[in-house]
């Protein structure tokens, strides 16, 4: 953890025996900012497939984007293990883990099936959804919320969503999803009440897929 610490500092004097901790700042107003983000996610989950701009000014270090950084700042803490998709450049990965470690204090896990939150920064290489934590019969909520970085919400293939929170149909365009995603999503739906929930993220915008949302073939 200490080794990568000096890499991001512009011409700063090396600290005497200390890890350099000039991280990207977190929320300017932690209480109000996290309440705002929480509200946005709640609304997104309540209206699946609707795209929302969470209007955050949080910088996004390393592998994070503004919305995923804001989400983790608001939701991740000492009790929520976070899984970060492996395979990224070492320095970027280290910056990300340092940011999360400092601001969220969240345990980081290599084990996808133990994660409360999963960050997928390269959807084309994502592992199967079934590999995450799917919950238990007594506690179906003890499952992974998957944060997926997508290219955009404009111009990609459009799907029609239905289910709780959607009157009739909700169209959602997502660019940057792997071809197999929607098939996996259908399989996830079969596991109800178990399964994962997904939040698509592009810059400051989010769209939610709670496990009850169905996609039309």
């Amino acid at each position, binding site marked *: 953890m200490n080794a990568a610490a000096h890499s991001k500092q512009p011409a700063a*004097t090396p600290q005497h*025996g200390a890890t350099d901790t*000039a991280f990207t*700042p977190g929320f300017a107003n932690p209480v109000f900012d996290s309440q705002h983000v929480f509200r946005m996610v709640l609304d997104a989950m309540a209206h699946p497939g609707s795209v929302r701009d969470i209007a955050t000014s949080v910088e996004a270090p390393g592998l994070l984007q503004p919305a995923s950084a804001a989400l983790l700042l608001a939701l991740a803490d000492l009790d929520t293990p976070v899984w970060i998709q492996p395979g990224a450049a070492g320095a970027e990965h280290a910056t990300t883990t340092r940011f999360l470690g*400092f601001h969220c204090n969240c*345990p*980081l896990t290599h084990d996808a099936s133990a994660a409360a939150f999963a960050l997928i920064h390269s959807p084309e290489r994502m592992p199967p959804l079934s590999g995450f934590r799917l919950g238990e019969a007594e506690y179906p909520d003890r499952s992974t919320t998957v944060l997926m970085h997508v290219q955009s919400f404009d111009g990609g293939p459009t799907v029609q969503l239905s289910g709780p929170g959607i009157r009739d149909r909700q169209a959602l365009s997502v660019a940057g999803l792997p071809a197999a995603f929607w098939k996996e999503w259908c399989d996830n739906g079969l596991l109800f009440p178990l399964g994962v929930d997904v939040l698509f993220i592009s810059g400051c915008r989010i769209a939610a897929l709670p496990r009850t949302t169905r996609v039309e073939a």
Partner: protein
Amino acid sequence: MNQTADSMQHATAATPPPDPDQREANRHEADSVRARQRWMAVLARASREELEAILGMLPPQPAWQWLRRPETGLAMLQGRAGGSGERFNLGEASITRCTLRTAAARTGVACVLGRDHRHAELAALLDALLQGGESVRLERAIEELAASQSARRELAARKTAATRVDFYTLVRGESA
């Protein structure tokens, strides 16, 4: 700040380097960590008033930047069954922590028991200043603080000692 075994945050120990220069550097690093641990313990045990007084005797400090504003929360305290066995969660304590960066690019960290934001702020600022190793006055003030904490402890220990039972007064002084 967590101790879970599968955390990726805590790097495993590096393999020991072979050359003497590197070993010297490591020893130096270990010494400076120990020195920092020592003064942080003293700052944590000081009262807010004592730290204000120390800051007051230094020249006015330029503004610093918050990396983490003082926040109060909980630390779960753990014990061990039988004092040495498996860990258990005993109960929580209130703690306050903060991290700041001085104009001289030193990072000050503080984590103290209790809910006093100003105490944490002062401890972090002094931690940053002490890392510079530039202020002899400051170092001396910390030594004095450590000495007074030690003296208070010693006084309590002497009062406690007066309640030690002497089963055999004849044996007193024989075992050194």
